[in-house]
Structure formats: structure tokens, C-alpha cells
């Protein structure tokens, strides 16, 4: 993954976090950000972002970081469920 590409994804997720934090508590904001990524982002973009957040987190807004964490966990659960089926 290139540095430029990661920086672009980080910028995008931070922007989503800034726009989805208004008028709701943090837990709700994290859920909404995560759902936005699930609904609109392509698989490789989500994977790159999760990989990035596991390496470093300095550039990520706190809510964005938590949302990526949640996204990662939900993907693991989904994978386990899919494997069971």
C-alpha cells in the first residue's frame, strides 16, 4: 500500500467522522461511521484502512479510529459466521 493511498483513505475517514459526530453521542457516532464504511466503501479500501489503523493511528480522528476497530471486529464475526455456513 502506498503512502499516498493510505493518506487519502485517512483523510476520507476523518472527514466522515467530522460529519457524523454532530447531534449524537460517541457510541452512536462510531456505529454510524462504521455503517457508512460498510455501506459505501469498497472491500480493498476497507482492508487497507484496517491494516493502516493496526500499524499506526496518529493521523486518525479518535471516533474514526474506534469506528475502524468496530468495522474490523464486525468483519471477523461475519467471516466466522460465513465459515460456519
Amino acid at each position, binding site marked *: 500500500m502506498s503512502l*499516498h493511498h493510505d493518506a487519502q483513505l485517512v483523510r476520507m475517514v476523518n472527514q466522515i467522522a467530522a460529519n457524523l459526530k454532530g*447531534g449524537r453521542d460517541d457510541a452512536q457516532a462510531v456505529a454510524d461511521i462504521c455503517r457508512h464504511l460498510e455501506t459505501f466503501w*469498497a472491500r480493498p*479500501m476497507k482492508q487497507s484502512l484496517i491494516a493502516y489503523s493496526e500499524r499506526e493511528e496518529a493521523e486518525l480522528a479518535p471516533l474514526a479510529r474506534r469506528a475502524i476497530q468496530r468495522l474490523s471486529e464486525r468483519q471477523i464475526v461475519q467471516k466466522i459466521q460465513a465459515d460456519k455456513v
Partner: protein
Amino acid sequence: MIEHYDPKQHSRNTEYAKDLGTPFPTQAVGAVSVSLEIDGVAITVPEGTSVLRAAALVDINIPKLCATDSLEPFGSCRLCAVQVAGKRGYPAACTTSVAEGMQVTTQNERLAKLRRNVMELYISDHPLDCLTCPANGDCELQDMAGSVGLREVRYGFEGENHLQATIDESNPYFSFDPSKCIVCSRCVRACEEVQGTFALTIDGRGFESKVSAGQADAFMDSDCVSCGACVQACPTATLMEKSVIDHGVPEHSVVTTCAYCGVGCSFEAQMKGDQLVRMVPYKGGDANHGHSCVKGRFAFGYATHPDRLTTPMIRETIDQPWREASWEEAIGFAASRLKAIQAEHGRESIGGITSSRCTNEETYLVQKLIRAAFGNNNTDTCARVCHSPTGYGLKTTLGESAGTQTFDSVMKADAIIVIGANPTDAHPVFGSLMRKRLRQGAKLIVADPRHIDLLKTPHLRDAQHLPLRPGTNVALINALGHVVVTEGLEDKAFVAKRCDTDAYQSWREFIADPRHSPEASEAITGVSAEAVRCAARTYATAGNGAIYYGLGVTEHSQGSTMVMGIANLAMATGNIGREGVGVNPLRGQNNVQGACDMGSFPHELPGYQHVADPVARGRFEAAWGVTLDDEPGLRIPNMFDAALEGSFKALYVQGEDIAQSDPNTQHVEAALRSLDCLIVQDIFLNETAKYAHVLLPGSSFLEKDGTFTNAERRINRVRKVMPPVAGKQDWEVTQDLANALGYPMNYAHPSEIMDEIAGLTPSFAGVSYAKLEEQGSLQWPCNAEYPLGMPTLHEVDFPIGLGRFAITEYVATEERANRRFPLLLTTGRILSQYNVGAQTRRTDNQRWHDEDVLELHPSDAELRGVRDGDWLGITSRAGQTVLRARLSERMQPGVVYTTFHHPGSGANVITTDNSDWATNCPEYKVTAVQVEKVSQPSAWQQRFDAFDQTQRGHLTGARETSGKAATP
């Protein structure tokens, strides 16, 4: 191939084929019926109908000259004189309304004599060159002379006359020959009533009366916008299309849909064989009711321009010359490249872009090719860069990704807010309709950094301009919402009944916060608090409040937020769910709505069904016989990023010029250069095609069958009037590519594709070509519940049940003016050119706008020593380009403006890759720039010119090698 019978090909709908003399009396809707007798024939019509119209409805055709059913009656020619039992004299049938029990006589000796005398006077000052006149066979004066039986002109032709008047040839599309004018004022009235420009007038009195453009200017030097309404209204050869002068009167016509903006006007393509002679807006068109603009009516010459691509071409690398190939070879070459790339780099390494200019059927097929044959969801469309935030914002709040009204709804609006849209330039026919309503007294509020022409509407009564700073839309809409809530202007009954209470309460609490007050946001938006309060009160209390918006709303880092803010405001004031109100996105391209509906977005199957929805996906999987990916694919900007990163290797682009239209051109160019295979399907060698390996010639809208869906969700038929220049309609090419990739497609006609769409898309379930023939057009949703479609959305409930207010926090864009880049650049369009200009630049519309210029306020110019016409270097953090300066008071100080119709202008070299947070729609409308006087083109422009020369050479070389002429 099976030929499908198309009954509309050669016959016109008789109801609309005839001129009924006066318009349908709209004030009489719901009025009582009136029964009368005309020449002993009984007829019942609505009160307010003219005798002329009533007679025409029973096929009693009273002679007339100054009357036509697109204009209010005028009563000047006196040819339609009739007699009414019990009344004295000879009233004009056009200005006489029907009355109960009225007995009208339209023909007798006295009337015949009267009419002959009238005609005799007209003809005494009219050339008798009928046989060589361009209107021969299509002249109402000639018809009337025949009809009244004029046999001699007793006055002779020697007296004072107008026969030597000079012809005005200044307009490229029509001529004005005053010697043939009968001063019926139809042209003047069309300019006023239909177009709303008021460019024409009758100069002088009595015998001296003359039609005049402005102050006796030539048409091109006047305020005329060349819509052609006057030409269409003229009953003689005075105003005449030059194409008819050159080629003669057409012999057959086909009703089809314009391929320019999102208004989607219906036209009669009037033909001689397979040659298009003229386009005449179709009176039966539900979007345009017989009106058009300079693009739709006149700018069709591109379809037969020598630059049209006529043969497929291929090459190994983009520095090689093109080689002409057969369709089979080119498609085979493309398919083998795609397969090899997927084998090496994986299933997700390729994708495609559908076109908002192609038909619904073609768009559907491209996304099907990508999802089913490519096996991924890497499909996107040019709506990404224009109205994707509309899709997101309206779906989130109202539950449907579309405008809520018909165009006609504006005629019932009492207060109209126009935000970031310029309808008189970008949606001219709707702009004319809006102006008509404004002349009737509706209030106008314009939120725009520029003083747009709508604010200069003649006879405008009450207009408010909120000249906000670019990038501060959300702060403004929040301030408007704040006023509505804190001044008690809400429609509480509507909100209680139709909207989700919790979401509403959260929004109310949020918006009532003093930080959203107009006083607090004044410093952000630059709009005075009092102006904001006044606008909110007007919108909320005038009666029917309607909001119209354009790309000035969507193309921002908070485009989606702004769309939701607009929906919030409409819901809070109860301005949803009936005629005269609503949330109305004005769509840029002819089929943007359709491209979105047809599943072009990477996360949505046709009909806005998410790819992760197992039920919807299951239906598509069963119908298409493949397993579909359940995760969204890449959006256009994501594709570029992935290409530069090295994971995205091939792209199939149908009818979109991403190299010119997408922001940060140098980034796009680098991405395109990095591809191993770029397949471009277009009618011209566009900017994107210069980076392609496979060039597949496209077909113009005149060369194909299909449907377009306009901004009011109206599905209109597109009908083929001439054979495709390169032998294939675009859907056939996509089908061939699918078959070459091993995924079978076997459609014989676009109607079969529509049948498949109807079977898989709930909102299209009731749509078929047969029903479109029957109804003319259909506004989706069209299904079992609404078999004839739904003109106004959300009348009873929302598709999500209750409307959802959304929190719309203002988050300032990162793109800010600073010391280095002190000005804000915003971009837009003008009337005569369309989008990237590929079509209009190849017509005489060039006469109005042959280069993009930079508009700036005189005070910004003075500060930099810039004079009108100077070359200016415009620099942003993305790049630099050079344009000529135009000083303009339309701009506010600190804001500069340009258009992007010419590729060499490089407007998008300076726009950045900032984008909407939710949809990645680029932030075209805000770029911080510096401007300075320069003496030569920018480095990018010099590179562009060199590359352009080389690539054109590669094309010419291929054509010469094959020994074919460059003309089709």
C-alpha cells in the same frame, strides 16, 4: 435481427399535430363546462376556452394568422372573425370566450368577403415569390390566402411597401427577412410569453411597425438567446431555420428526446430521408410543452461532424499510432486484455464507467456487464461528480433518491428558493417556465455567490439574493432552519403526522442552538442576518414553498449534508407532498437520473437496491445466472487512487470524458496513463480517448432506440432517426463485449432490456415500451400501485414511512483562502455550451462562447492591475492554467468564476481532489487560487497542446493508412 414495429415512427399523435389557435385555458381547470353550437355542431368545453379553440376541437378550422396555441390570443389579424347569434359585428374567435348556449357562425358570404379583404391588404405588401420561398409548403400566410380564396390584389404592388427590407443573417441558425413579415407579433409574444427573454419588440406605429431585436440591433447583438421560439411561432418565412432554407421542407418526422440537459425536452426530429433538417420541440412533450433552447433545437450538427469516429481502433500502448480494426477484432482484443489482466491482478483489478448521456438500457447493460461478466462492483457513473450527494441526502431523509415534483409544479409555487443553480443557462426550458411563474408574482430567493440571470428576470416583482461565500452552504441552510424553528414558522401538523418524532426532536434541539442563528453565521456566510431571516419567513409563510438546487449544492465537501439540510427545511415547513412545493434537484445531463436509477453506483443494484441486501441481490443472481459480489466496488475517484497505487489496471468507459470533466486533471491523467488497458466508447476522440488502447465508436442519440429519464423522473422514449455512423448502437457494443468475455447477452432490441429492468426493479415494474407508446412518458415509480407513474412523490407517506430529519453540522472545507491563495474559484456552465463541450464545440454554438474566461470583480482586478482581456495565470495547490480575464460585477469581490467547456482551458487542472464526505463527489465549487497577469500559456497547457497534437496525429495516421476518408 428482428425489426420491432414502432408505430410512432411515421405518424404523429393527432391531438398534438394540430394548432388549436389558443392555449388550453389553465385558469379554467376545475371550472364548469360550457355547451355551445358552432356552425350547428354542438360542443362542450371548459369555461374560458376561446371560440377559435372550441371550433378547432370539432375540426371546424377558422382561418387565423396571429393566433397559435402556444400564445395567449392577441386579436390583431382579424382573420378569425365570426358571427355570434344575438351579437352585433364580427368578433375575433381567438379573443371571444365561449358562453352557454352560444351559436357561432364561422362561414358565410359576409365573413368570406371580410377575410378576403383582410388577406388582400396583407398580400399587397408581401413578396409573391412563393415558389422559391423557403417556407413554400410550410407557410400559414400561403395557406390562408388559399383558404379565403384570394384571387386578386386590387391595390397593386407599386405603393409604399417593405419589400426591399434587408435580411438579418447574423444568427448562425436562422435568418430574419423583414420583407416577409406581416407584423402578427407572434415572434414578439413567443419571446415574452414562452421564453421570457423580452428581446424582441414591435418598433414604430402603424405602417412603420417593424419587428426589432432590442434597439434595432442585429439578432446576434441583441439580448436574443437563440431559443428559436420566434422561429417556430412565425407563420411566414420571416424567421426561418437556415437548415430549411438550405435543404427544403422536411418530409417526415419522428418524436424523440433531447440528449442535452436534464430537462429532457421532447422534439420532432424533422427529416428528409435519413438527413435531419430541423428539430422542433414537440407540443405533446410533458417536460417542455413545445419549447426548447439553443442547444436542443439547433446544436445537432455534431452528429454528422467529420470528427465522428467511424471505425474501431486498437493499439498496444498509448504512444503508438492507432490501427483501424473490425468490430470483431477490436472487441476480441479488448476482451482478451481484460481477461489477462484479471488473471494476473485479480477479479477486482478492472472496472467500468456508465454514461449519463447514454440510454437507460445502455447504462443498465454496462453495469450488468461489470457486475456479471467482470464479476465485481467496480461500476460508477458521471453522477459521481455531480449529483451523488442528492442520492445520498434525499434517500437518507425522504427515502427516495429523486426530485419530488414535476417541472409543471413550479406554476403553483408561491415562493421559490434557487440554491447553487443557474436554470436560465443550464436548464433553459425549465428556466423559462420558472420565469413565467415569477412574472405571475411568485417570490424568488436566490442563494448563490454570483448574481445569476434569474435575478434579472423582466417583470420580476420580488427577489432576494443571498450572496453567500463559496463553501458555506450548510451554515446558510442551518441559519434558515434556525429561523423557521425559533420564530415558530414550522408546520407542526405536517411534522407530527409525517416525520419521525425522535429524529425531529434531535434536529430541533440541534438547530435551535444560538450558534446556528443568522447573526452567528453572518461572519461565515457573508450574508446579512436580516436577509436570512427575511428569506426564511418568505419561504415558510408565502404558501407553497419550493426549493430548486443544482451543482452549487452538491459539489462541495458537504454536498450531502447540504442536500439533507434542504430536505429538513422542506419537511419542517410542510413543503413536501403536493404540487407547488418540494425538493427539486436540477440534473445536469440528459440521463443522470436514469444512470443513477439503473444501478450505476458501486453500492447499488438497479432501483437503489443495496448490493448487501440478500433478497434483492438474489433476484439479480437468479435472473443473471451468476453469483454477485455483496460488497460495494470502487467509485471513480477511488479507481484513480487504486490505479496510481497499482491495484487497478483496466477501465471500460462509455460516453464520459473523465480526463476533462473530473477534478485535478493531472492526477486523472497520471491514473489513466498507469492503466494497462483503457477501453473508450465515444462518438469523438475525447480527452480520455487519448489515453486509450481500444477505441469503440459510439452512436449519437439520433442513431439509437432507448429511453432517457429526466430530472422529474420522467421516462421518455429516444427513437432512432438515422443509422449509427459506425454500424452499432452503444448497447450492441456492450453486448458484444459481454459475449466475448464469455458472459452471454442476446437482446434483439432495447425494449427487451427494459422488460428485464422492469422485472428486477420494483419502481420500474410497470414500465414497458408499449405503455410508453400509449402514455407518451411515465414518471417512476410506475408499478401495480401506480400503473401510470407518480408525478408528485411523498403525497401520503415516504418510502421509509416517516420522514427523517438529519443533523447537519457545518464543517468548514479544508480548502480555504489564505495569503498564498487569496481568492475562491467557483465553476459553472453557460447557455450555449454543454458540459465538456464535445458536442456543442462542434456546432455553431461556438459563436457565442469559443473560449472559457475567468470572471473576476473589478476591485480584485484593479488590485492586480488586470484589465479586461488580459491573460491571467490562475494557480491553486493542484496546478496552474491560463485564461483571459473578464471583469464582471456579477461576481462578489474575492470570488472568481470560470466554465469548463473547452479542454485546453484546463479549468480542472486547478480544481482539487477534495470531495464530499459521504459520496466523494468532487468539490468543484471551491478552490483557493491566486491570479496574476502572465504572457504565455501554463506548462500544463503547453504539454496538453503537444499531447493533443500527437494523439490527433495517431488518429489521422490510422485513417490514412486504411485509405479511408476522414468523413463518415
